[in-house]
């Protein structure tokens, strides 16, 4: 479990990181290292250069302005889980970060690293999708924003350009009456979600958002279920049908036994029940 040789650099600004990304064919940014380093140790990744971005001040910090929570890309999972601003304005994000891996993983791993790595079984993509978050990205052509719904392209592939750095995640604050749940079924070996359902209900039941990770090639929004629930209202009788709709439309592959769709059905239903129970 030893990496191939590589050059190690430390960037102190986003621009510097961006510049370094253009220096070779294989340059990798290093955030928490909890996804990149295992790959390098298995020699599945062998970048020529590794650029540590943990010391870039612009990537740190959590703030809220005009109903938008900005979470710096270098924010560790543990901070996302425990930060009072995030807990107050976007509790779904905190709840999701709180159940990633274990204590060590949460102490090292970052929100930016997790989203950019885009493992199809990662937890956070479900939350940022359900929250309609935007990725704030800096590259050679300046800063742009990518909606979460366009960010996850395929397993381990994002809409991030080769020279781009994720700076922060902007999350619209949840309505004050919102109730939310992240329900995860950890894999018995890896602890990653076999399925993770992130959902919230707010604005007097007129906003229902739900995204599912782990079960498809990327995380996805359960749009049919959302539409049905928005129309019918979320209640004991509508939840069953919404769960069925989510299962039927889930983009799952290799589901020979039908078990994956069954899990979608059960976990969507449970997540919604839990959300409604949380409301009272």
């Amino acid at each position, binding site marked *: *479990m030893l990496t*191939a040789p590589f050059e190690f650099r430390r960037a102190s600004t986003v621009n510097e990181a961006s510049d370094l990304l253009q220096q070779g064919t294989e340059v990798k940014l290093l955030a928490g290292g909890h996804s990149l380093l295992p790959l390098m140790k298995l020699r599945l990744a062998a970048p020529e250069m590794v650029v540590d971005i943990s010391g870039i001040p612009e990537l740190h910090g959590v703030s809220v302005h005009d109903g938008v929570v900005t979470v710096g890309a270098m924010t560790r999972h543990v901070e996302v889980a425990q930060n009072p601003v995030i807990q107050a304005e976007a509790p779904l994000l905190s709840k999701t970060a709180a159940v990633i891996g274990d204590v060590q993983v949460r102490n090292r791993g970052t929100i930016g690293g997790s989203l950019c790595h885009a493992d199809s079984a990662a937890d956070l993509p479900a939350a940022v999708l359900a929250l309609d978050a935007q990725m704030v990205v800096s590259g050679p052509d300046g800063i742009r924003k990518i909606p979460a719904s366009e960010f996850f392209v395929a397993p381990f592939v994002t809409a991030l350009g080769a020279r781009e750095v994720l700076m922060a995640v902007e999350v619209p604050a949840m309505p004050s009456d919102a109730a939310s749940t992240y329900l995860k079924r950890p894999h*018995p070996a*890896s602890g990653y979600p076999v399925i993770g359902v992130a959902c919230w209900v707010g604005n007097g039941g007129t906003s229902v958002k739900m995204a599912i990770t782990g079960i498809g090639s990327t995380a996805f929004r359960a749009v049919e279920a959302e539409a049905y629930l928005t129309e019918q209202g979320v209640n004991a009788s509508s939840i069953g049908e919404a769960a069925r709709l989510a299962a039927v439309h889930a983009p799952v592959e290799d589901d020979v036994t*039908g*078990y994956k769709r*069954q*899990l979608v059905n059960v976990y969507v239903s449970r997540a919604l029940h839990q959300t409604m129970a949380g409301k009272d």
Partner: protein
Amino acid sequence: MPQVMGQALKRHEDIRLIRGRGQYTDDMTLPGMVYAKMVRSPYAHAKILSVDTQAAQAMPGVLAVFTGQDTKDELGLIPTAWIPPNSDLKMTPHPALAFDTVRYVGDAVAVVIAETPYQAQDAADQVQVQYQPLEAVVHPREAVEDGRPQVHEEIDHNIAFHWTVGPDLDAVFQQAEVVVRHEFRQQRLIPNAMEPRAALAQYNNATDELTVWVTTQNPHIHRFLLSGILGIPEHKLRVVAIDVGGGFGSKIACYPDEVVASWAARKLHRPVKWTETRQENFLITSHGRDHVQEVELAGTRDGQIQAIRVKAYSNLGAYLSTAGPGVPTILFGLIINGAYNIPHASADVYGVVTNTTPVDAYRGAGRPEATYLIERMVDLYAREIQMDPVAVREKNLVQAEAFPYTNPFGLQYDSGNYQGTLKIALDMLDYPKLREEQAALRKDGKYIGIGWSTYVEMCGLGPSEVAGAVGFQGGLWESATVRVHPTGKVTVFTGASPHGQGEETTFAQIVGQELGIPVDDIEIVHGDTARISMGWGTYGSRTTAVGGGAIHLATQKVIEKAKKIAAHKLEVSESDVVFEDGMFSVSGVPDRQVSFQAVTLDAYLAWSLPEGVEPALEGTAFYDPKNFTYPFGAHVAVVSVDPDTGDIHLMRYIAVDDIGNIINPMIVEGQIHGGLVQGIGQALYEGAEYDAEGQLLTGSLLDYAMPKARFFPRFETAHTVTPSPHNPLGVKGVGETGAIASTPAIVNAVMDALHPFGIRDLPMPLTPEKVWQAIQQNQGGR
């Protein structure tokens, strides 16, 4: 002097281990040390066409690259050390580095030696091996079919041995009222000791001595085998196991890696270190279990079991590992009647080679495979005759008056009250009430299940005479030296080789109690062939029963001699001296006394010793037990099954064990918990899977589910104590009981829960998907 035997003393070894001060093989650094990295086959079965080492040789820091061609004439083959008699066992020639054929993924073909581990790895990646892939076999029963590829040319139909025991039982089965037949798959398990394996070899040019630090459970067996393979005589070979981070059987075997590191150290005159990665650990360190078992049980309509027989195909992997052939034969076949008085039994075992990682002992080794078979069959039989599984057990368990009980294969079960442990478990559970609850819950669509396992196992291996009779190529006695230093402090040298089981504490308790001195005055030394004359190591739950027995006898020799000196000092005859709590006193005159420490000093000063008594004070004993020991007990699991997801929730687990006398209850508790977790791991989570090409699909901790603490409820444990008459301490062994008993208890519980769906059996591990699917198929989804 307080009582120390039977006390839950904290573990002496933990002071260093939990503070990160332990010294494992990989922690060792020697001046001039270089690093070995193996080049391993990515194919399960292939011809080696060529190995090009040129590019690797030229890499920075590389001292040498050796291939199988370089080593084949200089190294002996790696042998198996267990040859079951009358089984027509064929050896599987196992070169340390393969030179013409590779037989499993991970088989080593070359080694790179470099100045740093990184350089070694970089260069290993540049060794170009051309393979001609061959068809592979992975499944033990398929491997014996006609027309399958042969793993070894010499081994027809891949049958390395065929071992049978017991008479022809056809007549019994033909006349039986009830015959239950079933096929079980004992899936393959990957031991995953916390510390991967490692070896560090140093050759001393001046003395021609080779020292090998290696992760082993049995340094003297390692020395014995390495000596033969390397051609270095035993008096020039030292094997050291400092701290070893768990083994579970996987550190019994002698592996190619330590052989190659040793050979290279001698060749290059540099200390060579080899350290396994976790990824390699999955691929090359021995696996466990892997049987297909065709089982038949004959009985009466009213619950009397008359016969049990099995035909088993045991997967041994690509090469016969050190103890590999003994596990599915002696340690399995001879005890398939379990804790029951079954008059007729027979076993028929095919030892099969396949293109998979070699299989050797894994916690329980053979006995879990036997216990699962009989405990599951008892439940299937109970279902068949519509009797409660507890009633069937009560009817068939060996009766307390029957001990010593001779089983159908001639094993003599030592002592016990099997019904006694079952009774306690029944009370702890409140069985009748739980059955009522179960019935009520079923009406609400909730499914709970209760599963029993009333087991016995054989351990404390074992008398050497039996070892010889069953083909184990070694002895099974143990050695101990108790050396009392002039100040009365004690060093104990044991031939057992604990690697996490806590005997540095347990053994000190034995000696402290017997000598009446503080346990802190006692150091236990193990795992070094230069400091310990001989020993057979730690496996088969033998360490306390046999190693402890030796220590007891050696301590008695010390006391015997000290008594002579004390009598001389007290000017009385030896028979008038009593020894108690560390004091020698004159019988009837308790204030005429002298301490153990004072006597020790006298022994060393030797100014005035009794006639014929030599100076110094130490005792050495070589103890060969009279028989195995037979721990037993009753375990019961309560589970609930969620039909929506197939999830199994373990609600309660009760373990009532009788392991004979208990020296340290906390350590015993720890051993039971660990064993349970591993046994339950087999039932619910673990399972190695290969594809048809022999690629290990569960090759990392991302895919292979090791049990985690959060999966378990608090275990409820209790004990009865029936001392074993087979050793002086009356202990039976506890290292493996949990792993042996728990697997069938869990599966019996799940099948009990699934009974309303008409499900009789499912192959382990009982993953939620498998359970859910079975429910779907049997009910069309309620």
